[in-house]
Every structure is written in structure tokens, then in C-alpha cells.
């Protein structure tokens, strides 16, 4: 089972079309292995993206350099997954 230790999910808020364009550019960078849960669509709508631990620093630096606002939606994805797994096991028992 693939693990997601250190993966974070960021919620990104864009202010204008230019910032959206920057996020769409980020989407094209395959080596970052980003998983967009909510894709960049309109400035009013948030963008949620899962970022592997290895790409976190690069993405955050990029966002900060473009003055794009973000917050951490999920601090460590694996912690949430472990909790989900425990719930399932407990329920089966």
C-alpha cells in the first residue's frame, strides 16, 4: 500500500487571473507530482492540491514568490489515512 508520509494538502486562494495562470503553470510541472483535488478555475474558488514531501519546499517557495496566499488543509496526509484505516478495522471488528 502506497504511503503518503509528509504529503500535505494546501488550500490556495488566488486573487486574480494572473495568479490562476501561475497555478495552471504549476500544474504542468509533472516532476513535482502534484495532485490537484480542486483545479484552478476561477479567482473566487479555492484550489486544493496534494503535494508530496519532496516537492513541498519548491511549491511553497513558488507560491510565496508569486505572493499567492495558501494555508495547510492537511498537515500530514498519512496521519489522516492511518486514522481512516483504524476506523475501518475497528468497525469490522
Amino acid at each position: 500500500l502506497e504511503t503518503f508520509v509528509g504529503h500535505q494538502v494546501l488550500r490556495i486562494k488566488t486573487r486574480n487571473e494572473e495568479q490562476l495562470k501561475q497555478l495552471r503553470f504549476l500544474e504542468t510541472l509533472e516532476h513535482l507530482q502534484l495532485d490537484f483535488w480542486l483545479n484552478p478555475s476561477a479567482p473566487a474558488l479555492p484550489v486544493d492540491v496534494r503535494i508530496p514531501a519532496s516537492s513541498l519546499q519548491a511549491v511553497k517557495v513558488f507560491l510565496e514568490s508569486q505572493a499567492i496566499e495558501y494555508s495547510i488543509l492537511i498537515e500530514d496526509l498519512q496521519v489522516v489515512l492511518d486514522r481512516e484505516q483504524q476506523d475501518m478495522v475497528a468497525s469490522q471488528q
Partner: protein
Amino acid sequence: VERSRSTFNYGTYHSLDAIYQELDNLAAEYSDIVSKLQIGESYEGRPLYVLRFSTGGENRPAIWLDAGIHSREWVTQASAVWIARQIASDYGSDPSVTSLLNKMDIFLLPVSNPDGYVYTHTMNRMWRKTRSKNPGSLCVGVDPNRNWDAGFGGPGASSSPCSDSYHGPSANSEVEVKSVVDFIKNHGNVLAFLTLHSYSQLLMYPYGYKCTPPADDAELNALGNAAASAIQSLYGTTYQVGSICSTIYQASGGSIDWSYDYGIKYSFAFELRDTGRYGFLLPAAQIIPTAKETWLGLKKIMEHVRDNLY
């Protein structure tokens, strides 16, 4: 041997086998109105099961409802099973469901992408696509909601097999999609096509492959807003209503665009909760609240279809 009442826990997530077992339980427990049909097999050979809710009659007008086409959206499969029991148990006690089923059939596909669902349980919880092999690529799977014959291969779908929104080699290339298309075409009297996704609380109608409003824009918008109000009435969950293109972004090859262009006027896609902090990992404690509020929205649409046969 008399079957005992199901002990299925609707407030937790389950494996595919457990869900399929519960479909059998429902068909046995409510055998007068519920039957299980197999409409095809997935790429890896798993059955695609549909529950048929019917009080009899030949080829009655019908409502189609599916869940879990994106496998990681677990709350949709879980909600679908809860909704299945709700439909069955409401018949004869809830006047709305009773009158609906006296006039129409409901077909419910609780796990549209069983290979993907099993893969999320066994290999990668974040898997979204099918599990079909892509010749010439190491990457596996097609986004089954970019694979329908509706602006196939257009904006908002990727031509890269490694992308999570890969549209596939051709429309209906995914057997999971083709099975639904064939079933609906063979039936010939499906009047509503409803599909459950998660997350972000949206209720959308066509189009996604283009940004022009559908011919029934006003009616669909009014009905969508009525359904959203019904959803909100239970726990205050707010939904945004609109066409796919105006609500999120252009996305081609989607199921409700195909169904609408095929002639199924009442085509809607739900994006269920999360209300903001869990994404696709909605805690199991929220399954039943999600299913309950969704059911209210679905019922609102189903009642409208029942009262506006075309």
C-alpha cells in the same frame, strides 16, 4: 434458511466485497421491489452491479443514479449504499418515494469503477482512474469521467496517459463507461441521469465540454437550486448550482454531457461534502449525514422528474 436482517454498518467505509454483499442483502430483504442486475464487467473482470427498484411494469420511465466513478471519492459509494436502503425502506411508508416507484423505476450503480475502488483499498488510496493498461505507456488508467462521447478529447481533458484526467484512446474505450452507455441505450426510457462525485458541494448540469447554456438551462437551474435548498435544509450545507463550465471549469467527455446530448433532460452531477478540511478523506462519521442531505436533494429532482414526464 431465513435471511437475517443485514448488520451492515452504514456509518463506515467498506471493501468492494462487503458492498456487493450488502447489495445482495438488500435484494433479498426487499425482494418485492429490489433486484440486482449485472450490466457488465470492469477491465479487471469485476461485475458491475446495478440495483433496480421497481414495482413492476415493462420498460417504465426510469431514473439512473451512479456513484464512485472516481474511485477515491469514497463517500459517494458509501452514500449510494445508504440511499439504496433508504429507497427500499421508504417505499410504502414515504408518500413521495411510494408514488415515484409506482410510476417509475430507479437504477442505482453504487460502484461505477470497481477496479479503481479495490485499488484505493489495496494499493493507493488516492487513485481516481480506471485500471486499464495504456499501450505504449507505463502509466495505467483513464479518467472515466473524460471518456464519454461528449466533446471527447476537447478542453479540460488530458491526452497524457500519466495524467489523472487522461481521456483515453477513444470515447467509451473504458468498459465501465461503455457498459453504462449500452445499458441506458438498451433501456430507452431513462429520463434522468444523476451522478455522485465528491467534494466541494456543487450541483451541476450540462455543459462541461462547452460553455454555452443547455436548451433547458432555466428549468435545470431552478430545479438545481430547489435541490440545493433541500440539501441545505438538513444541516445547512451550502451548494453552488450551475453548469459545469460556469461552476468550475471546462471539462470534456463527462457523463452528464453525454446523457443530456443523448436526450436525457434531467442530467445532474453532485459534488458532495467535504465541507472544507478533509478532501477525499471525509471521516466515516460524516457518511450518514452526507447521505441524508444528499438524499433530500436527489428526492427533489426525482419528484420533479416524476411530475414532469416527457
